[in-house]
């Protein structure tokens, strides 16, 4: 299929879709474009840029789905993007037409944004969505009266039931947009003479554009430094209180809108306010939390049960591909790089997709039904003392499955400080990748016995590690709260939307787009680190490495049976790893990790498992020359149980060492995928580096204390 975006890029007009949050804007976008969607990036921010192509009667149109916003006042990154695109500072993103979606039940709030769009001088059309709900609530909106008052074409739709979508397509196709008269003159709240040079400098058509740019231009890092300096100088040279002007503008706008609404909206009968029955249950001071806990449990059950199937398939597929590559490609460095570095590296990225997609699928369902903002409402009180926000609950609970979607979900937190704290602590939640490590070590040192005939000791130990993660989160966020400084005021203003059934198509689109973002953005970093680790693990001082290889080949030649060859190969790979650069590093860090109860072999596993925690198990299998299937817990357990620590003469994996290791893994970063996603979400290396350092220190100190107490 040819790419319609490329072939008609010059001629197809751009249409931006904008609206308040929760008005069904994305549903309309999804239905207009179908699967013809692309996800990209806006420079300087983490907001996803969603564009799509609409084909109608032989013509194509480029659609841009702008993030939901209440006004053009840019408070969050989402709103900065809406502000930037609509103020047309960027030629590439400049839309010819703007389609605004309004919730029929929230007409005045919608018209507030609409009136701002009118004043920007945009070619506009309004879609009054959710007409079904308005009908139910006996609210009648006279579309023609509204058209007369605003001068903008109006459509009624019910996007969930796909009603009115053809009219939207026709409207776009017929270019039925209008650029009406100013809604509110800038002169009513600000002297327009101040704006003359702004208009000239930036080539703007309307006073309102100039006022917006002057008031908010500095918030947009997408503007060139030269332009930003110019705005800063201009602001310094005038003595007008722009903030007061903005307040006045807001009041005047709403006053005019109220007048219009009185004319166009007919409420048939007023219904007295009551508490929704569902809210009585979901927001109950006791049962509300019980229900939330039950929903979480259900989600994690589902993720652990369902995600493991595709994850095992991906794992098997990449293992087979690596095997195929090493046996079918000509022997050499390149093959070994492909088979042992690149293929497992890509596999290491792809393996996360089932979890990420499923978690975001569940989150989208909770969001779409209106439940998620209730959770934020209930949890805010408990998060606030720790420097977190009610919205931090989503990343933190996601972290129990995997920190990557958790960190990605932190994007919705508007306040910079609360967002950074959330990102910093989310990886401390015990994710599913820690489970293999915990299970092996607990199986090794904790007896499978009942305490008081009721609690299984092993289960208690595992539960303890999860609790430890939560304690780590609270402790660290509390610390960060007093360290990080911000002038931004923390606030909570969220809408609790009406309960609705989720739109499955939108849920699927979210699952797809989040997985896509992860693979394309974090994938590069993960692949790069995998290759570096491969180089370090496969190369060492050549003389030693060659000697081991020569000895191995010689032994293999003399071997009598295939079993003997396998033993020789396993032992050789253990010695090769020991002599490699990573092995040398493992030896080098031994003095530092000896107080934690580890020997250099564990040191090697600590370094290799920086890629991902579960690598610990396979490295341990290699380094202790464990034959057979390294996935088989029992073989590993027996072998490990017989290891003697040369430093102490005791069992290597005794109780203190095992617990010290588990505590270390509970807190250490040990996941390059998380590192990569933090890099993406914070737009730089500063925070991922700080995070790695603090988590490693926390892990080291806690493991040290654990070992010293237990031994």
């Amino acid at each position, binding site marked *: 299929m040819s790419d319609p975006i490329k072939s008609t890029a010059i001629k197809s007009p751009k249409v931006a879709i904008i609206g308040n949050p929760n008005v069904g804007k994305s549903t309309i976008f999804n239905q207009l474009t179908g699967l013809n969607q692309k996800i990209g990036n806006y420079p300087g921010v983490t907001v996803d840029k969603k564009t799509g192509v609409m084909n109608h009667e032989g013509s194509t149109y480029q659609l841009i789905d702008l993030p939901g916003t209440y006004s053009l006042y840019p408070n969050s990154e989402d709103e900065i993007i809406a502000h930037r695109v609509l103020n047309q500072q960027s030629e590439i993103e400049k839309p010819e037409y703007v389609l605004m979606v309004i919730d029929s039940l929230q007409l005045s709030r919608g018209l507030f944004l609409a009136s701002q769009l009118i004043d920007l001088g945009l070619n506009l059309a309004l879609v009054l969505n959710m007409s079904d709900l308005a009908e139910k609530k006996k609210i009648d909106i006279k579309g023609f009266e509204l058209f007369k008052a605003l001068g903008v074409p109006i459509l009624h739709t019910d996007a969930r039931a796909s009603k009115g979508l053809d009219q939207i397509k026709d409207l776009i196709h017929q270019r039925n947009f209008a650029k009406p008269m100013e809604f509110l003159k800038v002169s009513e709240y600000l002297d327009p003479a101040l704006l003359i040079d702004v208009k000239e400098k930036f080539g703007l058509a309307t006073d309102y554009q100039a006022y917006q740019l002057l008031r908010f231009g500095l918030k947009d890092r997408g503007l060139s430094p030269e332009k930003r300096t110019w705005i800063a100088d201009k602001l310094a040279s005038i003595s007008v209180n722009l903030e007061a002007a903005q*307040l006045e503008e807001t*009041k005047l706008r709403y006053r005019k809108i109220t007048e219009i609404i009185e004319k166009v909206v007919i409420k048939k009968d007023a219904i007295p306010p009551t508490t929704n029955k569902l809210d009585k249950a979901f927001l109950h001071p006791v049962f509300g939390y019980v229900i939330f806990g039950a929903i979480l449990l259900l989600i994690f059950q589902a993720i652990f049960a369902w995600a493991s199937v595709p994850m095992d398939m991906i794992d098997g597929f990449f293992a087979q591909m690596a095997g195929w590559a090493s046996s079918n490609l000509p022997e050499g460095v390149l093959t070994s790089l492909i088979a042992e570095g690149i293929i497992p590296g890509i596999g290491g990225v792809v393996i996360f997709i089932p979890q990420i997609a499923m978690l975001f699928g569940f989150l989208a369902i909770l969001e779409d039904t209106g439940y998620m903002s209730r959770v*934020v409402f209930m949890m805010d009180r408990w998060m606030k003392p720790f420097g977190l926000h009610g919205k931090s609950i989503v990343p933190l609970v996601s972290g129990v499955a995997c920190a990557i979607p958790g960190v990605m979900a932190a994007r919705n937190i508007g306040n910079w400080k609360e967002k950074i704290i959330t990102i910093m602590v989310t990886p401390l939640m015990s994710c599913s990748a820690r489970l293999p490590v915990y299970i092996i070590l607990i199986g090794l040192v904790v007896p499978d016995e009942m305490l008081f005939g009721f609690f299984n000791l092993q289960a208690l130990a595992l539960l303890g590690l999860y609790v430890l993660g939560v304690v780590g989160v609270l402790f660290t966020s509390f610390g960060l709260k007093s360290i990080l400084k911000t002038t931004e005021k923390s606030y909570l203003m969220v809408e*609790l939307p009406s309960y609705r059934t989720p739109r499955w198509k939108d849920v699927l689109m979210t699952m797809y787009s989040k997985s896509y973002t992860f693979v394309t953005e974090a994938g590069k970093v993960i692949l790069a680190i995998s290759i570096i680790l491969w180089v370090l693990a496969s190369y060492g001082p050549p003389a030693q490495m060659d000697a081991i290889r020569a000895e191995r080949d010689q032994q293999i030649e003399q071997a009598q049976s295939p079993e003997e060859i396998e033993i020789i190969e396993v032992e050789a790979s253990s010695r090769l790893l020991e002599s490699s650069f990573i092995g040398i590093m493992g030896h080098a860090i031994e003095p530092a990790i000896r107080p934690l109860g580890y020997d250099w072999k564990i040191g090697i596993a600590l370094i290799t498992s920086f890629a991902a925690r579960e690598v610990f198990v396979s490295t341990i299998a290699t380094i202790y020359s464990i034959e057979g299937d390294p996935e088989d817990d029992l073989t590993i357990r027996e072998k490990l149980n017989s290891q003697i620590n040369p430093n102490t003469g005791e069992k290597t994996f005794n109780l203190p060492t095992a617990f010290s290791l588990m505590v270390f893994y509970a807190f250490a970063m040990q996941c390059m995928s998380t590192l990569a996603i933090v890099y993406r979400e914070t737009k730089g290396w500063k925070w991922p580096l700080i995070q790695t350092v603090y988590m490693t220190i926390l892990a080291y100190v806690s493991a040290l204390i654990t070992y010293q107490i237990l031994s």
Partner: protein
Amino acid sequence: MIPELAHKFMTADQLPLLKQAIIREVKDSPLRINLMELGFLPGKIICLHHVAPASGPMAFLLEETILALRKNEASLLEVQLL
């Protein structure tokens, strides 16, 4: 202020559940504009819909929407009971 109406003036965080009140003023604060753009404006009618446990956020019904605010933000809204 008319004396007999005085007891009816309060800030929105002190509102009883499900009683309608009219917003008289939004107090000066950095958050004033955020409240106003959401539609918390003088003259609008609000009603407390739900309070989260342990003095948590408060959910107000404003026109047809339920909006949650923290106690601090609610105290910026000066209201009069209807």
